[in-house]
C-alpha cells in the first residue's frame, strides 16, 4: 500500500510517499521539504507561513510523484496533518489534501503530528517500545506507550524547548537559515563558561519561559555592557557563545532528567528522541550518557526524519488506514490543539 503524506503544521512544508509491504520495513519512495525561512530577528508569522505552503504545495507534490515514479492510481490514501500546530498553515495544507482527495478520488486520513514523529522514529531506528522524548519548536513531551495510547508522562508547562532556543536566536540576531536551533548548536560548541540560569523541573514536567527571560536579560547586558560588563564566575567576559552553551547545557539537562524519571517510572531502557530539537548532537550525547548509566540505549534519527516531514505523516496515516481508519471529507478539519494521547493507537498491541 502506498500513502501520500502532507505536513505543514509549522514553517516546513513536507511531502512524502511511503510504501508498506507486510512484514518488511517501510519503503521511503520520496521525502521532500521546503522551509519558510524568516529574516534574522524574526519568527515565522502564521499568515506568511500559510502563504508559503499554498504557493509550494503543488510543486512539491508534482516533484514527489516524479522523483518516485509513483502513479496516482497506485496511491491508496492521502494523509495530512490534522494538528497540533499553527492554524493558518494547517488549514492551507488540509485544503490541499482535500483537493487532491476529490481530484483523484482517494480517501483522506487525518494524522496527529506528534504520533507521526513517534511512529517514524520507531520505524527508522527499530526501537521497539521506547520512552519517547518529543522536542520541537511547538512541543516538549515525554511519552510512553500503554494500552493503545501514547501517554504523556511529562511536558513543558509553558513554552516548548525549541521555542525557547528559537527565541533566543532572535534575541542574538542569529540567522534562521537553515534553522535557528542549528546555529545556536554551532555557537554553543565554541562556548566554555557556564553562567547560572534557572533550572525548572517539577516532577516529570518542566518550564522554559523563566530561563528564556533570564538569558535574554543576560544577552542585553552582554550586548550593551550596561550597567556593567557581563562576567562569568571565574571573572572572564561572557561571550554570545557562552550564553548559547549555558542555555543548551541547562535546558538539555532538564530534558534528560525528566526522561530518566519517566524511564525509571515505566521500567524501560530504551529512549527515542524525535522532533526538530532531537537533531541536536549535544542532546543526543547527554541522553546517551544517561541511557548508558541505566544499561540502555538511545535512538535518534537525522534531520530527514527529526525535522517535520511529509513521510512521517504518510507513515502514521498508513498505519491507521491499514486498521480501517479514514477521515470522511466533512470531518477533514484541522485543529491547533490535538493531544498525543487522544489518538487510539489500534496498530499496536
Amino acid at each position, binding site marked *: 500500500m502506498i500513502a501520500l503524506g502532507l505536513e505543514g503544521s509549522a514553517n516546513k512544508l513536507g511531502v512524502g510517499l511511503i510504501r508498506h509491504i507486510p512484514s518488511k520495513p517501510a519503503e521511503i519512495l520520496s521525502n521532500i521539504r521546503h522551509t519558510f525561512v524568516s529574516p534574522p530577528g524574526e519568527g515565522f508569522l502564521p499568515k506568511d507561513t500559510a502563504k508559503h505552503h499554498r504557493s509550494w504545495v503543488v510543486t512539491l507534490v508534482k516533484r514527489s510523484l516524479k522523483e518516485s515514479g509513483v502513479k496516482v492510481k497506485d496511491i491508496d490514501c492521502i494523509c495530512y496533518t490534522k494538528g*497540533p500546530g499553527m492554524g493558518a498553515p494547517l488549514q492551507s495544507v488540509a485544503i490541499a489534501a482535500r483537493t487532491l482527495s476529490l481530484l483523484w478520488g482517494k480517501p483522506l486520513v487525518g494524522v496527529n503530528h506528534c504520533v507521526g514523529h513517534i511512529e517514524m522514529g520507531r520505524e527508522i531506528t527499530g526501537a521497539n517500545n521506547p520512552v519517547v522524548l518529543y522536542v520541537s519548536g*511547538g*512541543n516538549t513531551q515525554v511519552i510512553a506507550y500503554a494500552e493503545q495510547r501514547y501517554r*504523556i508522562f511529562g*511536558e513543558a*508547562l509553558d513554552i*516548548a524547548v525549541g521555542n525557547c532556543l528559537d527565541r533566543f536566536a532572535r534575541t542574538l540576531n542569529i540567522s534562521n537559515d537553515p534553522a535557528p536551533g542549528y546555529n545556536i548548536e554551532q555557537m554553543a560548541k565554541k562556548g566554555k563558561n*557556564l553562567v*547560572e540560569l534557572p*533550572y525548572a523541573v*517539577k*516532577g516529570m514536567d518542566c518550564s522554559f519561559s523563566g530561563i528564556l527571560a533570564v538569558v535574554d536579560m543576560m544577552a542585553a547586558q552582554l550586548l550593551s555592557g550596561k550597567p556593567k560588563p557581563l562576567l562569568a*564566575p571565574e571573572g572572564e567576559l561572557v561571550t554570545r557563545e557562552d550564553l548559547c552553551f549555558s542555555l543548551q*547545557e*541547562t535546558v538539555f*539537562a532538564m530534558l*534528560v*532528567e525528566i526522561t*530518566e*524519571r519517566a*524511564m*525509571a*517510572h515505566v521500567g524501560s531502557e530504551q529512549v527515542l528522541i524525535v522532533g526538530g530539537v532531537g537533531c541536536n548532537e549535544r542532546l543526543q*550525547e*547527554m*541522553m546517551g*550518557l*544517561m541511557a548508558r*548509566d541505566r544499561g540502555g540505549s538511545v535512538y535518534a534519527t537525522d534531520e530527514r526524519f527529526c525535522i517535520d516531514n511529509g513521510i512521517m505523516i504518510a507513515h502514521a496515516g498508513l498505519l491507521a488506514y491499514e486498521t480501517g481508519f479514514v477521515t470522511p471529507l466533512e470531518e477533514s478539519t484541522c485543529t*491547533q*490543539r*490535538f*493531544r*498525543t494521547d487522544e489518538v487510539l493507537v489500534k496498530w499496536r498491541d
Partner: protein
Amino acid sequence: MGTMEIDPPTPKLLIKQGAEAQVYSTTYLLPHIPALLKHRPSKPYRHPTLDARLTKHRCLSESRLLIRARSLGIPVPAVYFVDESRGEIFMEWITGSSVREVLDEVLAQEDGESVVDRMMVRVGAAVGALHAADIVHGDLTTSNIMVRNGEREEVVGFGEREVVLIDFGLGAVSTQDEDKAVDLYVLERAFSSTHPKAEKLFQDVLKSYEQNYNGAKVVLRRLQDVRMRGRKRSMIG
C-alpha cells in the same frame, strides 16, 4: 595515647534505585542505630558546575522540608546528618510497610476495609498537617506513606500504628491551593489504582484531612477542577 577502636563501617545495602537518588540501608554513628541513606549521585550527562549546584540545592531543600515538618510534629523521618556536597542525607530508618503494601494485603481479605479505616484517619491527618504547614509533597502516592510497625505487632492493629510520610525529593514550600490539590489528586489516583475497595477509603482520608486543616475547603474545591482536567492542561500549541 592508645589507639581508638572504631567499628568497621556498616555495609551499605542498596534498597531502591530511583531516577535521581539511590537509597541504602545502613547505620548512623553506632552499629545498632539503623539509618537510611539517600544519595544523589553525580550525573555524567550534566555540566559539573550545574551538577554540583543541583545536588547541593536538592539535598538541602529536602532536608529543610523534613526538619520543618518534623519540628511541627508532622510524622516524617528524623534527619540525622546531611553532607550536601556529597549529596548524602542520613535519616531515621522506618521499620514498617508502605500503605500500598498494607492495602494490597488487607483489602484482599473479606471485610478488610474496617481493619484499615483508622489508618485512613491518620493518613488524612498527616497530609492535612503537612498542608497546613504549607509544605507540598510533590509525589504523594501510597508507596510514599509508611505505616510504622508497632512495638508488639500482634497486639497493635494497623489502625493504631503511626503513619510516616517519606521521600520529600519533589517537595516544596507552597501556599498555592493548586499544588495542594495536585497532592491530593495524585494520592487519590494511587488509591483508585490499588483496589476498587480503596476508593471508598479515600473518602475517609479526605474527611480526616478536612478536620486537620483549616484551609481544606478551598483545596477540596480545587481538587474538583483538577479531577475534571486531569493533572495536565488540555492545551498544546
